[in-house]
């Protein structure tokens, strides 16, 4: 067990964990940040997606010891009021069915748009393809990413 100092959602937090613990379970079990979800544990579904220095990563496959001073952003830190362009678009298009994968979808979309504010259809498909949605909300995910892109100045 070691103590880790992490930069999460703009705050510095300290937590004790085994060095190989994945960031996902540190977020969930230690820090009470429950937006990132467990879906597969092997980086295949994307439900656990968070940002590391603005890049979408699979928190289930990142050991806490590898985070260092890199800035972690979870869905809870994406916006103060849940009204970032991607979140607003997700609501407007009414994307969620069960909702379990949606935090990961939103984090993936937000990372895409931060880097590529006006993505082509192919870029949207490439970015969102790795995130599974078992309910099949894919049509509205596509639509919401386009809407979010239009909302961004």
């Amino acid at each position, binding site marked *: 067990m070691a103590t880790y100092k992490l930069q999460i959602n703009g705050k510095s937090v300290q937590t004790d964990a085994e060095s190989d613990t994945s960031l996902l379970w540190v977020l969930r079990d230690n820090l009470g940040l429950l937006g990132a979800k*467990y*879906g597969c544990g092997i980086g295949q579904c994307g439900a656990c997606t968070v940002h590391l220095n603005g890049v979408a990563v699979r928190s289930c496959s990142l050991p806490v010891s590898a985070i260092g001073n890199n800035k972690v952003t979870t*869905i809870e830190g994406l916006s103060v009021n849940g009204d970032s362009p991607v979140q607003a678009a997700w609501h407007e298009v009414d994307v*969620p*069915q*069960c909702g379990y994968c949606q935090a990961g979808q939103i984090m993936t979309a937000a990372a895409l748009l931060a880097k590529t504010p006006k993505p082509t259809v192919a870029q949207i498909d490439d970015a969102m*393809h790795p995130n599974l*949605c078992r309910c*099949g909300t894919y049509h509205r995910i596509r639509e919401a990413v386009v809407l979010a892109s239009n909302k961004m100045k």
Partner: protein
Amino acid sequence: MSIITSSTRRNFLKISGVTAGGLFLGFNWADADAGGFNALSPEKVLSGDISFNSYLSISPEGVITIFSPNPEVGQNIKTSFPMIVAEELDADWTRVKVLQAVLDKKYERQLTGGSGAIPHSWERLRKAGATARHMLVEAAAKRWSVPSASLTTNKGMVMHKETGRTIGYGDLATEAASIAIPSDVRLKDRKDFKLIGTAVRNVDNADIITGKPLFGIDFYREGMLFAMIQRPVSFGMKLKSVDTSAAKAQPGIVDVVTFKNNVAVVGKSTWAVNKARKLLKIEYEKEGAIESTADHDRILKELLDSPDATSRRKDGDVDAAFQAASQIVRSEYQCPFLPHNPLEPMNFFAHVREDGVELVGPTQTPELARTETAKLLGISPDKITLELTRLGGGFGRRLKADYVLEAVELSSIIKAPVKVIWTREDDMGGGSYRPAVRYRFEASLDAQGNMTGYRLRGVGINANNSTREDNFPSGAVENLLIESVEHKSPITTGAWRAPITNFLAFAEQSFLDEVALAVKQDPIQFRLNLLNRAKTSPVGAIRYDIDRMIGVIQLAAEKSGWGKKKGLSQGFSVYFSHRSYVAQVAEVEMKQGKPIIQKIHVAVDCGIVVNQSGAEQQVRGGVVDGMGHAMFSNLTFKDGATEERNFNTFRLIRLKEVPDVDVHFVDNGIDPTGLGEPALPPTGAAIANALYKATGKRLRNQPFVLQEELKGVKLGERM
């Protein structure tokens, strides 16, 4: 809101004051039979011993709280149920608050399954809203001394047109509580609906898009322990011996306990128990048959010729029809086992105390979870509370209580609050699959191309009846025989979204395509001819509505421009399930020698559509689900264990593989029928029939991408 148990009028008003006042109206979801709706007086609501199942409350500020009793699994019931109440209440939707009800034995059918919630509750929800509206109007009439007939309502207000007076529901709520409950109320004419039939967004969107802890796996409590359970990896094996010493010695591990065939590792974090579990040394021994997929393939084929079949339906003389036939078409179709794979794996929280049991988690059948828990522990169900969380998908997996009972048993052994979590590998390897099934279809045809005889035999592995003997084309064929054969296996199966029909529809609708093409008839016209025959000269019982089926066929044909599109290969399919009718036309385009599934047109008759947004989602989701599993998904067994245990080897459909899906609803004003499942069954055949037209390859087994017929055929991604 707390449960109110006092019984007097005075207490009611007092408690109303405490709980911000207003009108509490209990409504009995159980008694919607003609005139039997039993809107309960506040006194009765408060008595606590009257069978009311849910209630709405109106605060003096005009905020209306509606409880939604059924588990929310993504079918959007938590939005559509309250919409129905609010419609008849004439509530201002922006001031409606929806709460998930806890499990209460007074609710009826508090479950999610069978696409049955809206059809079951439609009438009683409307009456609940209408009854409250009636009382509010009467209260306003009394206050203003005007006839209630002179009053109208809109958006949470009562209006008196002559004098221009208006008053909000909140201001009337306390007075309305003293109005006599009407024995019967008039429901709105459909043309006056303001909310039903519009697109209303999911009431939980704000929480979902900000990552709020809504799901069972998100349930945490101070002092709670975490557990993972090692179950036998192979079906047909049982626990022989276990060495827990290495696992127990791991940091963060509290205990390792064994019960039934389970070895549970209990600890202080999810990570700790998952890691320690890998150090368990377990020996298993054979308890039943150890089967592999090769065995299943052989068994399914052999049993198609078994002398022991259960006859499900017999019309006319099918042998004579085949003897007299001028042409016979015969085909076999097979599907693999499938896991449900809800994205939230199984999990449940249980705290078994001396004085009672607390359960929290995601289940489609909370009542079953409670009664099974009571049975397991030998206690009264009254001692058990169950708080329903949101479900991260279900697809039928969460109809079973096995994962609840494990948590209960573990908590009772370790005498501590515990959340049991399944890993994806546990979930995919842990059983309760869609059964593997093989069908043989045979059709006899006369010289004019009429189908004179129809034989279907289904062989399933733990499928029970693998047929649906009264579905189309039963009733349309003079000589018909439908039989099923069952193979019992240690591999556990269960209801998987659109049970049986999720594959039967593919097989049947592909076969009818084969028959139509064999007699050189248009596939749609061929089906319409059969339906017309069923109408003019029905054979035996007909348990589907011929006109509704014709309605969706015609709508799909019209919207897809059936037969009129150049450069596109269209495939047709239609199916009746869960009281609703869905027809689909899939379109395949050949690009550089590759078939690309471009679009699926869907025509749905589910009666009145409550929520356009949610309904479109259910249909599209069903189509994506049906397409994905037909094309890609495969669960195989080696020596009793699944070979696929996670998403690296088990393929689910992803975003790029999804074609456009256009959804059209039949507008016929019929009371709502099912929608959570009916869009799934027809999809596989629409696609397979279109792929056949495009490539000349007939797909009879699933998943498509692994079939010999598609070797050398490059499926293109839709772009």
